[in-house]
């Protein structure tokens, strides 16, 4: 007994010594990707979707690119910018990562921006959606979307499709204000009129008094942007107050009908028209396979956050292929510029000038299929750039 214990201890020692010899050699063949995502807190569903999608991608495509092994290091920032900054510092200084990626909310993406510039490594933004983000560092590349992309399109569409008077209800924070301003600009330019404008506090989810005000203003439609998660509350109270029966439609960027939550919202949400970059019901074969594989692996359907993560890791793979495994950050960002590929959401590319994503924006209507609710696409605006930047 005693001898056996000694033997195993010796064996363990040998193993550790062996590892120590092998480890430095292995490190050079490993590319480390530091993922900073909200895995806890109110934005946790974003983090979960992105993590799932990246796992799925690596299962499908393997974990070696250009002779290098990809290693993911995940850190939770709970969408708190201070934590994002600490996490980014640890990843860059201690773990010596070659990429940082993820970023559930705009303040998190901005908090990491100066660090990416200093360390000269690419920051791949997979979720956050305000226009300014990519302007804060020449190393930021985005694979999610901007609110300007979807809000301007729905503004143009609404005014051309018989919606003349709109009341707006947006959450009072940066993405909400982005959505509101871009929508308003395009909607009024087309001859529409905003009859009522309400900004709701982020912390208060009882929409009753705001909705009553909307109802009394008698608009043709309500333009809504609330963070994914509050969409369910909004739609339930919209129906409770009978706004659907009063003939007031709901329009908006697609966050309010996120695939992640859509099925729990009930039939009141039927007929809601939104503009967005991705729907689980996108009719391409690639998307059908993506949704099926995601469902099989994780039991739920992917939302637009998942597709942002899936394309984010794809971009990292492609950049490494192009540099032949060279991990110089500046070369990697150069390699990312102008990349074009087919994503589950449709054809997308990275604008070489702004490093922001160029993609189709679809107009969708909530419909029922096989007993489930889906955003069914019926019109496409092709290769939409981020309009938040073209003005400058």
């Amino acid at each position, binding site marked *: 007994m005693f001898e056996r214990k000694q033997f195993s201890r010796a064996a363990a020692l040998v193993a550790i010594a062996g590892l120590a010899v092998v480890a430095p050699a292995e490190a050079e063949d490993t590319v480390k990707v530091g993922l900073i995502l909200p895995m*806890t807190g109110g934005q946790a*569903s974003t983090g979960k979707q992105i993590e799932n999608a990246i796992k799925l991608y690596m299962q499908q495509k393997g974990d070696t690119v250009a002779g290098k092994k990809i290693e993911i290091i995940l850190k939770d920032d709970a969408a708190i910018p201070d934590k994002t900054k600490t996490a980014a510092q640890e990843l860059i200084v201690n773990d010596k990562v070659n990429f940082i990626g993820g970023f559930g909310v705009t303040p998190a993406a901005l908090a990491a921006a100066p660090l990416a510039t200093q360390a000269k490594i690419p920051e791949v933004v997979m979720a956050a959606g305000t226009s300014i983000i990519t302007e804060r560092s020449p190393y930021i590349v985005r694979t999610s979307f901007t609110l300007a992309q979807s809000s301007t399109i729905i503004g143009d569409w609404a005014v051309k499709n018989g919606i003349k008077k709109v009341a707006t209800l947006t959450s009072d924070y940066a993405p909400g204000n982005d959505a509101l301003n871009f929508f308003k600009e395009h909607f009024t330019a087309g001859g529409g009129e905003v009859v009522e404008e309400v900004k709701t506090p982020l912390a208060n989810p009882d929409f009753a008094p*705001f909705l*009553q005000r909307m109802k009394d203003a008698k608009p043709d439609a309500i333009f809504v942007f609330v963070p994914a998660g509050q969409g369910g509350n909004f739609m339930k*109270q919209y129906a*409770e*107050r*009978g706004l659907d029966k009063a003939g007031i439609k709901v329009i908006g960027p697609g966050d309010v009908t996120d695939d992640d939550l859509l099925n*729990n919202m009930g039939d009141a949400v039927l007929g809601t028209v939104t503009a967005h970059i991705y729907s689980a019901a996108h009719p391409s074969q690639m998307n059908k396979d993506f949704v099926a594989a995601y469902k099989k692996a994780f039991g739920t359907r992917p939302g637009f956050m998942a597709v942002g993560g899936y394309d984010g890791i794809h971009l990292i793979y492609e950049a490494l292929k192009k540099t032949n495994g060279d991990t110089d950050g500046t070369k990697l960002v150069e390699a990312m510029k102008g990349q074009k590929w087919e994503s589950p959401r449709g054809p997308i590319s990275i604008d070489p000038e702004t490093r922001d994503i160029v993609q189709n924006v679809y107009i969708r209507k909530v419909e029922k299929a096989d007993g489930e609710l889906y955003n069914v696409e019926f019109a496409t605006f092709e290769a939409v750039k981020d309009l938040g930047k073209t003005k400058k």
Partner: protein
Amino acid sequence: MTSILTNLFDGVAYGMLLFVLACGLAVTLGLMNFVNLAHGAFAMAGGYVCMVLVNRMGWPFFAALPLAFVSAAAIGIALERTLYRHLYARSHLDQVLFTIGLTFMSVAAVDYIQGSSRVFINLPAALQGQFDVFGVGIGRYRLMIIVICGLLTIGLQMVLAKTRFGSRLRAAVDDPRAASGLGINVPQVFAFTFAFGCGLAGLGGALSAEILGLDPYFPLKFMIYFLIVVTVGGSSSITGPFLASLLLGIGDVAGKYYVPKMGPFVIYTMMIVILIWRPNGLFGRTAAR
């Protein structure tokens, strides 16, 4: 005119809901002199129990409500016997630190078990939508809240003022030593009262899921509202927090409707004005302990 009445109705329903959520806190804070900041965690427990019963096990909503009360009360009694009672004699700072810790633990536990997504309880069709009474929109669900909470308030007031248990509780609070000398089992009375307060919170949590939303952050998000109700109402009676809840509910709804730009701040402004005017709350005893 009709929109004023609709708002009044919404405000009353919102206020009633605040009352049921907060009155358990008024009991522990005011009557037992114990600062229980984990009160919202019991409300959340009730909400999740109701959600699991209705959505996953197919119970009818009205059958799940009493169980939300009972399970939150049971958790309350278990924690009171094992943890809380050791802190009755400690300073308020100790109590605050302990209960805040409990709150964070409950948030993490629910996040781990149920996930962080917001959940909704499937309501029966009879409770959905609005109907019109002379042009005033009456939400069915909100009407139910008013009825349930109204009955509860009357019941509570009767128990405290008219029953033997009520007098025992008041005696135990005012002078625990004399009360136990007279043969009142003070720890038992406190345990029962605490559990009842937790049960009310659980019921409030189940009722509020539809209007306030239910997620693991519930206890932190709404702690401030419970505290506002209790501070404005004064914590020495039930009528104080009741009237304060109504006032704040109506004020909050009206503020958001008529001045949406500053609506969210109306409730805080009201609190500040009332506390400047009456530092012990609207119905607080000036010579509190």
